[in-house]
């Protein structure tokens, strides 16, 4: 173990999922995530698993619905338009409490958009995405190494809470190569206990049913409240984040994924000049790590949000800060990629009192 190799992000998440016990993958080609199904098409058979190139994203997610209902660790991946198509199926998985794992290697939208990196699917990812009142756990990696190692946590949480988990990344993370160490031993899923809820062909006295409907008066309301209890527990226990230099900061830069890397580099450059810049980066986008923002909101006057979308991520920052600090926003949608220098330059302006980038509450 602990061997360091150079991998592409898309291949890293695929390999990470296989090592985390994934034995079923169904997907439909779409750029910029094609390396994931391509990798799975040869890698899964090596482990006795199944790869299916589905006829559509709709079919793919429903194959997962079936494969996960028998307790298999499953995965699908797509990019924005394909993820939109999968949303009905994700909603069914959420209701039926099936532990699927999927990735969205986000591209520019709306519509067919382009194949450039983007963060335009933040709302879709963090607000459930499909119909009905539900949430999925969303991880936002910022390095290829995280793409390789997060799948294990995703499966752990998916099975622990019986909830869909997803990884939200973009074309930069998917396509770039970085050194990777897998921080866990490969998991052989045949050694894991089959969860009691999993279908298998049961004795009639203990027959198992998985479904997402209840037409009896009041029952679906109860079902929703049961899901809410689980979501509340996840909100309490599972937020993850990274926070650097927040204690002495005059300004905190914040973003997730690729934008987080940009913030990080702006912070590093700024610190060299003596600017007191801190940085917060959510690792889970849902549950959102509100607490870290709440801890610092009375100490830090200014927050600077950087996102590759038109003001989506900033909404959660606003909710967490609750009007206690000034919020500034830099937006680069659908293929616009901010640089560290660009963000540092804006940070300097903000620190000197420029309000152009300030957002209203």
């Amino acid at each position, binding site marked *: 173990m602990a061997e360091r190799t150079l991998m592409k992000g898309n291949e890293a998440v695929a390999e990470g999922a296989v090592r985390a016990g994934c*034995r*079923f993958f*169904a997907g439909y080609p779409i750029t910029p995530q094609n390396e994931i199904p391509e990798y799975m098409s040869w890698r899964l058979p090596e482990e006795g698993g*199944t790869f*299916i190139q*589905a*006829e*559509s994203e*709709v*079919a*793919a997610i*429903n*194959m*997962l*619905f*079936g*494969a*996960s*209902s*028998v307790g*298999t660790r*499953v995965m699908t991946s797509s990019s924005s338009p394909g993820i939109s198509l999968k949303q*009905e*199926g994700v909603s*069914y998985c959420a209701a*039926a409490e099936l532990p699927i794992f999927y990735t969205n290697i986000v591209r520019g939208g709306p519509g067919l958009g382009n194949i450039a990196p983007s963060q335009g699917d933040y709302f879709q990812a963090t607000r459930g995405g499909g119909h009905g009142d539900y949430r999925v756990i969303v991880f936002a990696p910022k390095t290829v190494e995280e793409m390789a190692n997060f799948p294990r946590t995703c499966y752990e949480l998916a099975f622990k809470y019986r909830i869909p988990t997803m990884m939200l990344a973009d074309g930069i993370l998917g396509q770039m190569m970085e050194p990777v160490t897998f921080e866990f031993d490969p998991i052989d899923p045949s050694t894991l206990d089959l969860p009691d809820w999993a*279908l*298998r*062909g*049961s*004795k*009639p006295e203990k*027959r*198992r*049913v*998985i*479904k*997402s*409907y209840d037409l009896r008066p009041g029952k679906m309301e109860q079902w929703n409240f049961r899901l809410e209890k689980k979501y509340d527990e996840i909100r309490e226990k599972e937020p993850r984040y990274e926070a650097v230099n927040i204690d002495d900061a005059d300004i905190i830069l914040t973003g997730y994924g690729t934008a987080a890397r940009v913030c990080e580099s702006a912070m590093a450059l700024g610190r060299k000049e003596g600017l007191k810049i801190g940085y917060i980066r959510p690792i889970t986008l849902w549950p959102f790590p509100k607490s870290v923002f709440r801890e610092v909101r009375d100490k830090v006057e200014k927050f600077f949000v950087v996102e590759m979308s038109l003001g989506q991520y900033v909404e959660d920052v606003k909710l967490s800060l609750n009007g206690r600090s000034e919020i500034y926003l830099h937006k680069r949608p659908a293929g616009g990629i901010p640089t560290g220098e660009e963000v540092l330059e804006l940070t300097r302006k903000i620190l000197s009192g420029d309000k152009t980038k300030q957002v209203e509450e």
Partner: protein
Amino acid sequence: MEKVVFEQTKGLTDIPMRYCPGCGHGVVHRLVAECFMELGVQEKTIGIGPVGCSVFADEYFNCDMIQGAHGRGPAIATGIKRCRPDRLVFSYQGDGDLASIGAAEMLHSAMRSENITIIFINNAIYGMTGGQMAPTTLLGMKSTTSPSGRTVEANGYPIRVCELLAALDGPVYLERVSVDKPAAVVKTKKAIKRAFEYQLEGRGFTLVEILSQCPTDWHLTPLQAIEKIRKDLIPYYPLGIYREPEDAKRAKKEKVAVEKES
């Protein structure tokens, strides 16, 4: 001495079915259940319920059940079967479910020859949503979305699913049957059993299409609905086997030859 001539199959639960009087769904449920019981595979059967009047299938079939999204039964079945190849996996679907919204999943599961069985209830109407036009609604037939009768100009031609799938290499067994009289019911049961047997032998994709009465949305009495099956549906949807394995064909020929000789 008393002799039992009919018993409620243990393949169905005790929950009373909510189907309308004269509906074909209930009969087919019984046949499916009798088949997995007689094959001794109740404890290794996983069924998939559709969205449609038979959405409650998970309450009726006395085996492991999963209820999925409208039209996606074949994809769900694919996922289950690939992970549990030794289980009997069937997807129970209506005509709107299978041949309209789920047409792609139907075609591609057949094309891949997934080793699953589809029980296809063709009642030429959207029963559950209140009698809208189905892809299988006959020309001239009235529905709530073709109030003066289906026309070619507005709606095109009805789909013949068995014939369509017979154009593919993937399917192993395709048969169209009906449940309009006792002899037909017996035949339907044989067809379902054969499909299940082929699946258990690992042969590949099987589908049984059942022409089924919907008195409620056809606005007919149960008897009139049976009459409509014979008068209107069977002529457009001819009963018969549309695909079967070569060895089954050979066996049949041999049987006919033996009968001729003797």
